[in-house]
């Protein structure tokens, strides 16, 4: 049995109709007058879309901002890799879109596990984001007449996605980065690159600073402030193999969790169906092939598991177009979670292709026959080129081989309507929080959320906190700072002291396999229980046998990785605990015990329509579950069906 807190969490969502509360609330929140803003310092950790946008906007308002990132430049955060686009309810195509429809689609796409009020606000400010980015010089695709262009994306029946070729994330991030660098130049933002946050400093229960490691010199630094804004992304790398950048990690969030911040819905992970499969045990990451390919590609496996013919020699009657067979109305365009599970089912049953048996075909033969190679090249040329670079196979001639891969994490630190965690003064933005995507995120919504939080939410809500809180000056030798510094130092010393025989990566791969096997696309009670035991054993081995060479006083990438993997070793257990307690299937969380006769996900609204926010009591100790009940007065829950 899970230990459950008696009181439910207060999300601080104001009373009133969902389409009015943000406007009213902006009036009700306290302001910091312009002359006083310069008296406050705000720390922003991470410089992706959320962090870059927040640092720029807060600097423009007059706050003193200290921004941190672990990369060598703030322009490199993994937001940069987003390909497809960003949603907004502009309704430029005149095809029936509205703020309400974007709100509705996002709540439904999240399988009714997101907070309605946050999602409505997201839909509301989506249009401001497009305006802001356009004004910054982001080169969104245009029609010949010069107006902004839109395309379609999964989970919606309107064209509302704005894009910059296949590099939308890059262009939006560079827009935010440039806005932030302007503030750096003006002296309002101080940029600290190659810094990794290792501890949160709390004074009287309020977040007041961080301890970071300077990755170049190895020196630990204390930075104090009046508020801390965490924009540190998702935790997909707990699986080792994912589409995330190699540096993505849970450390900043996890250190805050260990200081008392609740971690919400960690089991909600998104597995993207169209990625290039693993080719060998040296594999370091997985590469996404855009969802758009499923518009023209047909997914299939041989009907005979022992069919060794080349794909082009297998006639149609011997092919199993399993998505078209199982979901005749949506066919190859079912949502991500459904397509991923169907591929897994075929491979688990022995029908997978390639040497590993862990791949299915994505075939463009019929599309090329119908539309001609030139048309297909115009639509997908860059993706075909990338596929060919990686696999040395020509997808114009032979079908692509694809397999699902971990892509995004909907869970994150719990935040209220102000995007503040349960620790006063600690705000969490973007993928690092849990609030907007429920149990499954729709395509082109991650960029929207990061920029919404950074440009249009935090500038208002942080003022309310700063205006109301009592924030005495904190000297750097304050006991809370000294303690945090010592904790960070101790952990590094411990990692360096093990001097075992195994590399950090070997532990990380092993953890990743456990997570993938038992807490991946499909989960069971017994599998999760097994995983928890295996993770505990592995964690013990890690602390006895990991080998980190060199010293803590220089650039030392093994040490950086060791710290992150150590945190993943603790975090992975919480993911399994959360997945174990959620006795239902919803969005990216599929419990095999909870499915319909046809093998579809079965939600349990009566018992699980809540946010699960976990409070830690230390490593290996049973956490406490805090519930935030969810209600859907505006978008009544229904079963998602794609038959």
């Amino acid at each position, binding site marked *: 049995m899970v230990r459950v807190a008696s009181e439910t969490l207060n999300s601080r969502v104001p009373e009133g109709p969902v389409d009015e509360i943000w406007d009213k609330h902006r009036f009700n929140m306290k302001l910091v007058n312009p002359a006083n803003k310069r008296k406050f310092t705000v720390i922003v950790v991470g410089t992706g879309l959320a962090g870059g*946008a927040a640092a720029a906007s807060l600097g423009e308002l007059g706050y003193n901002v200290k921004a941190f990132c672990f*990369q*060598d*430049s703030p*322009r*490199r955060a*993994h937001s*940069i*890799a987003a390909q497809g686009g960003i949603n907004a309810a502009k309704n*430029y195509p005149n095809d029936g879109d509205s703020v309400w429809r974007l709100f509705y689609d996002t709540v439904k796409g999240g399988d009714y596990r997101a907070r309605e009020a946050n999602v409505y606000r997201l839909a509301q400010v989506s249009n401001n984001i*497009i*305006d*802001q980015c*356009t*004004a*910054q*010089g982001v*080169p969104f695709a*245009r029609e*010949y007449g*010069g*107006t*902004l*262009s839109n395309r379609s994306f999964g989970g919606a029946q309107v064209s509302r996605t704005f894009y*910059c*070729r296949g*590099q939308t994330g*890059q*262009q939006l991030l*560079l827009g935010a*980065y440039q806005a932030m*660098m*302007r503030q*750096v*130049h003006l002296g309002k933002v101080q*940029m600290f*690159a190659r810094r990794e946050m290792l501890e949160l400093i709390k004074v009287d229960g309020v977040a007041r600073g961080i301890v970071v490691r300077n990755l*170049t010199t190895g020196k630990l630094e204390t930075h104090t402030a009046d508020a801390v804004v965490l924009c540190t992304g998702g935790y997909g790398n707990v699986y080792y193999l994912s589409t995330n*950048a*190699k540096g993505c990690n849970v450390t900043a969030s996890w250190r805050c969790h260990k200081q008392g911040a609740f971690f919400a819905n960690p089991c909600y992970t998104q597995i993207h169906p169209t990625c290039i499969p693993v080719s*060998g045990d*040296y594999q*370091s990451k997985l*590469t*996404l092939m855009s969802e758009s390919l499923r518009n023209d590609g047909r997914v299939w496996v041989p009907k005979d598991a022992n069919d060794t013919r080349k794909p082009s020699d297998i006639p149609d009657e011997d092919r199993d177009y399993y998505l078209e067979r199982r979901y005749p109305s949506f066919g190859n365009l079912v949502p991500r979670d459904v397509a991923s599970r169907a591929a897994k089912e075929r491979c688990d049953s022995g029908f997978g292709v390639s040497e590993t048996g862990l791949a299915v075909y994505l075939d463009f033969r019929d599309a090329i026959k119908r539309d001609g190679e030139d048309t297909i090249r115009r639509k997908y040329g860059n993706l075909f080129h*990338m596929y060919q*670079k*990686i696999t040395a196979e020509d997808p114009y001639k032979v079908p692509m081989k694809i397999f699902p891969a971990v892509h995004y994490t909907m869970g994150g630190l719990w935040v209220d309507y102000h995007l503040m965690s349960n620790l006063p003064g600690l705000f969490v933005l973007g993928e690092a929080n849990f609030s907007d995507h429920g149990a499954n995120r729709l395509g082109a919504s991650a960029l929207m959320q990061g920029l919404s939080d950074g*440009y*249009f939410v935090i500038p208002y809500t942080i003022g309310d906190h700063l205006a109301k809180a009592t924030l005495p000056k904190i000297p750097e030798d304050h006991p809370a700072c000294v303690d945090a510094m010592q904790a960070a130092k101790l952990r590094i010393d411990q990692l360096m002291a093990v001097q075992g025989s195994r*590399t950090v*990566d*070997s532990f990380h791969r092993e953890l990743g396999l456990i997570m993938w096997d038992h807490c991946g696309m499909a989960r069971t009670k017994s599998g999760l229980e097994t995983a928890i035991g295996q993770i505990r054993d592995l964690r013990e081995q890690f602390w006895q046998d990991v*080998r980190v*060479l*060199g010293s803590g006083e*220089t*650039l030392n*990438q*093994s040490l950086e990785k060791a710290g992150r993997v150590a945190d993943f070793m603790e975090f992975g257990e919480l993911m399994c605990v959360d997945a174990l307690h959620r006795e239902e299937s919803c969005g990216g969380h599929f419990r095999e015990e909870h499915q319909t006769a046809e093998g579809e996900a079965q939600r349990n609204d009566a018992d699980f329509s809540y946010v699960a926010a976990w409070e830690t009591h230390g490593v290996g100790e049973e956490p406490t579950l805090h519930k935030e009940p969810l209600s859907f007065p505006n978008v009544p829950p229904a079963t998602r069906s794609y038959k």
Partner: protein
Amino acid sequence: MSNDTLNLTLRIWRQENATSTGAFRDYKLAGVSTHMSFLEMLDVLNEQLITSGEEPVEFDHDCREGICGMCSLMINGKAHGPDNATTTCQLHMRRFNDGDTIVIEPWRATAFPVVRDLVVDRSAFDRIIGAGGYVSVNTGNAPDGNAIPVPSTTQETAMDAAACIGCGACVAACKNASAMLFVSAKVSQLAVLPQGKAERNERVLNMVAQMDKEGFGHCTNTSECEAACPAEVSVSNIARLNREYVRASLMSGG
């Protein structure tokens, strides 16, 4: 070819820190799968080094899909290696032959000091952007996205320049270690778009001044930068930068 493996000699630049003297060291690596990416090959080397008690080779990398611009490396004297329009992380070992010796160095430029081994400091690029690589529009000040039409050909030109990933290959490939391609890409993107017109003059003057201050060399139009650029940014942007610079100098009387 799926089971092909390579035996390689890797000649890698090792340097303890910014102030120490570096040197090449040779490493033998056997059984390298041709399906590996170049960085995965270095991962395998590092696993072996750690197991044998030698400190691993430090190198910058992050997204491993060719967009973040963090990976670098001179590979056999070429920035990002032998393939066109390809970052080091997208380069695969099938491009090499059994028995090859591969020479791996950091970017070499005064303005990019070595931090350790193959890692260099490219913060000069951030300071150049800070000097003017933006449109000064505070959050909340924007008109409707469609208020200013931008012909799609103009937008395409801007996008071609905006595709720069800020990796620094242009500097590393240039015999003068010039940053002109990088600077011209941002100047061009914002000079051709109507949103960037208001600050057109100050932008180019300030960015070029910062570039000079950082210690980058001058451009002598050898176009090595374009050949090395993984994002295929064209040297025609440098021509535009020169025009913008002259224009701004005349208009500001400088």
